[in-house]
């Protein structure tokens, strides 16, 4: 049995890490769209090698005003968390932090940086003399400094045959030679028209070994991605993959693999988790796989949001389950016992895989503001309505979601209808915005149930963010409201046995309880669901259940079925917390729970997210919605029953139609017992009112609705309907897969060694509490 094993990391990330301190940009701040880049602080964009220090691993980070001190290498315990890579550094923000050594007290490391204050640390190597500010930082008025690990030797120019800085190498047991892993690079190119994104993802696989390999890579895509094209490129030849029933595609792939043909297979493990296999990659050869998908953007509280996930978070699977998503250490395939496994890099290692991402926005109206709290970005603006945003080259490690938000001109975005016609008929999407009049009506008293995920994956920065959010939310409760705080990990417990009235004393008790909570143990989310939804309900109050979690579980179906079963009068308004949240789970919980979800990234401000949340729930919903499309005969609309409308949260409906697109749509709904009408003017002739991806979006939505129904409906025909829909529209689903085979050539030898592509744990997540090793 031939196996590959990890032997060590390159010199770049050995025990004696060299630390590069770069005065950088603040991507977390909203920037003027006229800025050419987001480097707001440096006179010129930073480049590697400008300032270099050596720093021992024992270097500590002490948040200003506290006595808590953490090793900076334990990034999940630093505050704010690392935003670059696990174990590679930390972000120091706005005159709140100092670095100091364990032993002889503080040693001035950088001296005083304007707006950052003094930074001290262990300065074992080269760099500025104590207290003397390096020239490169002298004029930096940063409110953020990124401390980034880098190799002792400055990286040379990129070499096709060598891994990048800190790349993981693997070695065959019988060989001395060490080689990088097969996934070299991911290139993401998106274009946004209106509220629909078209995204091309190119994964570049390379075989650095002297024998053939099969590469296997588990990766995420947005949970509403309609994946409808698949290309495999070998040299200058490109083969378009064919959609097949999953079992059939898997058989074809295995047969092609065993006969020596180059082949690739794309399967869906969850709506947001996919597996890519590429067989018979010959030594020294590269094979590219290009995936195309469409998805609709979320519109949240006045901002459009484009999200591209980069890494699957380590999931917890309840004991006894086998259909989950296992999280295991690199080289430990099979130990989780789960059907799908993600292999994670050990702390201090990198795979050499990097990512480039660029997205073109054609908003159709003026883009007023744009922000990205997850990554450093560069912007190029052609005119007021269009802009190209790309990730800054230094921020190229795929260990967190890319989250880009932009705001367009106008006090209120108008509802918009988009259509597409082909030989199968007409398709539409309607983004329906809540009426302004909702803001004028006051809400009823609330019963607020906070449910905090205290599992190991939340340990450190994520739980700190979640606790901040709960504290803020508790303070915003009003007299007449009631609340409860529930925590869960291996089991669930709570502050009290019944809802507590909002009093100063009760809020103080709740704050103390929240302060005492820490992250450890498993994620038995079902316990949290039961505790929250079975909790005694006061019928005089509007009941909201707010889950605060990263959603790192592998038993999503069980959780969603429980929500469906136990929801009752509750509404679920959740917060996804972390750098790579399981958005599939949180989005579906919100939909089943007739509520909404907001996401708090590790660089996001919890207070802002909570304030927006309260703005949303501080007004009643519009219910009993009916839509009249005029002459347009609508069929197969999803969701079939129009959900309730909340302030700041539009809904997207998609369906098929016959006849002419209307010039006006009328929406009727009930607000606080009163009927309201909204008239939406439509200009079906506008080019921006048409999009070729709408048929795929419709079919993907149909599959999503059927898959949700499948969780509580044992109708045996649902899988067949999903399969036929996916095959007809060339779409990935749980029952279909793309396969591509190069039949024109047989490679020499057997099918070679299978090499799994390990991934980093998401930024801010601790390896030791989440990965089986």
């Amino acid at each position, binding site marked *: 049995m031939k196996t590959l094993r990890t032997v060590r990391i390159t010199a770049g990330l050995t025990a004696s890490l060299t630390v590069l301190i770069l005065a950088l940009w603040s991507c977390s701040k909203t920037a003027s769209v006229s800025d050419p880049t987001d480097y707001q602080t440096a006179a010129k964009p930073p480049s590697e090698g400008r300032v270099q220090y050596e720093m021992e691993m024992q270097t500590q980070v002490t948040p200003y005003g506290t006595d808590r001190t953490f090793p900076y290498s334990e990034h999940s315990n630093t505050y704010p968390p690392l935003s670059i890579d696990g174990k590679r550094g930390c972000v120091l923000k706005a005159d709140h932090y100092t670095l100091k050594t364990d032993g002889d007290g503080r040693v001035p490391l950088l001296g005083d940086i304007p707006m950052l204050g003094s930074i001290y640390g262990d300065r074992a190597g080269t760099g500025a003399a104590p207290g003397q500010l390096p020239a490169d930082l002298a004029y930096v008025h940063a409110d953020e400094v990124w401390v980034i690990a880098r190799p002792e030797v400055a990286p040379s120019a990129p070499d096709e045959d060598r891994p990048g800085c800190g790349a993981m190498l693997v070695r065959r047991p019988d060989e001395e030679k060490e080689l990088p892993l097969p996934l070299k690079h991911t290139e993401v190119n998106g274009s946004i028209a209106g509220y629909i994104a078209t995204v091309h993802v190119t994964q570049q696989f390379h075989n650095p070994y002297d024998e053939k390999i099969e590469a296997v890579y588990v990766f995420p895509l947005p949970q509403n991605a309609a994946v409808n094209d698949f*290309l*495999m490129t070998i040299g*200058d*030849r*490109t*083969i*378009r*993959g*064919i*959609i*097949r029933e999953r079992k*059939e595609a898997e058989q*074809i792939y295995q*047969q*092609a693999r065993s*006969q020596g*043909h180059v*082949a690739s297979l794309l399967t869906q493990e969850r709506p947001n988790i996919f597996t890519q296999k590429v067989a018979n990659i010959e030594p020294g050869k590269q094979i590219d796989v290009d995936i195309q998908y469409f998805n609709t953007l979320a519109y949240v509280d006045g901002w459009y949001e484009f999200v591209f996930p980069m890494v699957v978070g380590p999931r917890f699977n309840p004991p006894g389950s086998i259909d989950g998503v296992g999280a295991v250490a690199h080289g430990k395939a099979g130990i989780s016992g789960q059907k799908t496994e993600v292999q994670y890099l050990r702390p201090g290692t990198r795979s050499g895989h990097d990512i480039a991402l660029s997205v073109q926005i054609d908003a159709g109206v003026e883009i007023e503001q744009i922000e990205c709290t997850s990554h450093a970005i560069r912007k190029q603006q052609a005119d007021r309505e269009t802009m190209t945003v790309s990730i800054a080259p230094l921020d190229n490690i795929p260990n967190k979601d890319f989250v880009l938000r932009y705001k367009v001109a106008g006090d209120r975005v108008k509802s918009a209808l988009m259509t597409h016609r082909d030989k*199968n008929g007409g398709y539409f999407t309607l983004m329906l915005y809540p009426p302004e009049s909702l803001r004028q009506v006051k809400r009823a008293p609330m019963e607020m149930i906070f449910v905090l995920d205290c599992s190991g994956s939340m340990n450190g920065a994520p739980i700190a963010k979640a606790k901040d959010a709960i504290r803020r939310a508790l303070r915003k409760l009003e007299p007449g409201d009631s609340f409860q705080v529930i925590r869960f990990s291996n089991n669930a417990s709570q502050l009290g046995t019944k809802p507590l009235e909002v009093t100063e004393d009760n809020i103080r008790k709740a704050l103390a309880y929240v302060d005492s909570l820490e992250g450890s143990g498993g994620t038995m989310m079902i316990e949290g669901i039961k505790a929250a939804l079975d909790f005694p309900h006061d019928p005089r109050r509007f009941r909201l259940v707010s889950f605060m979690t990263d959603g790192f579980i592998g038993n999503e179906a069980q959780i969603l079925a429980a929500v469906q079963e136990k929801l009752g009068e509750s509404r679920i308004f959740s917060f996804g917390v972390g750098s790579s949240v399981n958005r599939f789970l949180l989005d579906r919980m919100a939909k089943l729970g007739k509520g909404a979800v907001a996401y708090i990234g590790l660089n996001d401000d919890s207070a802002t997210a909570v304030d927006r949340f309260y703005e949303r729930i501080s007004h009643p919903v519009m219910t009993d919605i009916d839509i009249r499309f005029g002459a347009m005969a609508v069929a197969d609309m999803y969701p079939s029953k129009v959900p309730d409308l909340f302030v700041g949260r539009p809904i997207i409906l998609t369906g098929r139609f016959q006849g002419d697109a209307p010039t006006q749509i009328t929406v009727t709904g009930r607000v606080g017992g009163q009927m309201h009408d909204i008239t939406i003017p439509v200009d079906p002739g506008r080019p921006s009112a048409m999009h070729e991806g709408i048929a795929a979006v419709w079919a993907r939505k149909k599959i999503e609705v059927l898959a949700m129904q499948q969780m509580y409906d044992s109708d045996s025909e649902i899988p067949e309907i999903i399969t036929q829909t996916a*095959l*007809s*529209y*060339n779409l990935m689903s749980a029952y279909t897969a793309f*396969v*591509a*085979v*190069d*039949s*024109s*050539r*047989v490679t020499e030898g057997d099918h070679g060694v299978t090499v799994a592509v390990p991934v980093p744990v998401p930024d801010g997540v601790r390896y030791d509490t989440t990965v089986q090793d």
Partner: protein
Amino acid sequence: MKAIAATAILALAIALPLFAQQGQRYQTAVPPVRFAPVHIIIDPAGKPLAAYQFELKATAGQVKIVGVEGGQHAAFRSRPPYYDPQALANDRIILAAYSTNKDLPTQAARIATIHLQITGTIQPEFELHLTVASDIDGEPIDAAITLQKGEPK
């Protein structure tokens, strides 16, 4: 002695056909599944070919389409043709492509390759129908379409 000889002859008589059968089975063994391409050639009869659509259907043998590739001519090489998923069956496919290249094929050229999985020993046979071929202005071309069976190299 005679008895021994008779026994030996009898044993040989029984064993030889078995060995022969074994050898024959070994020599004629055909993998139950194999992969091979089919190349599609269009001859636009001197006119520049900018777009086409054709249908390929297997009339004999058991085949599955497992990939679609562009042709040899530069105008149709970089981007593989699109297939109609609603018309896709195991043994049937409708393919279409267009090119905006200035250099378009005017003579017989390979414009696509279809990758197949072939099951069983029956050699597949195909029916090929050119639905449309047109020039850069969308004017129909009286073109001929043929196929060439390939084998993996």
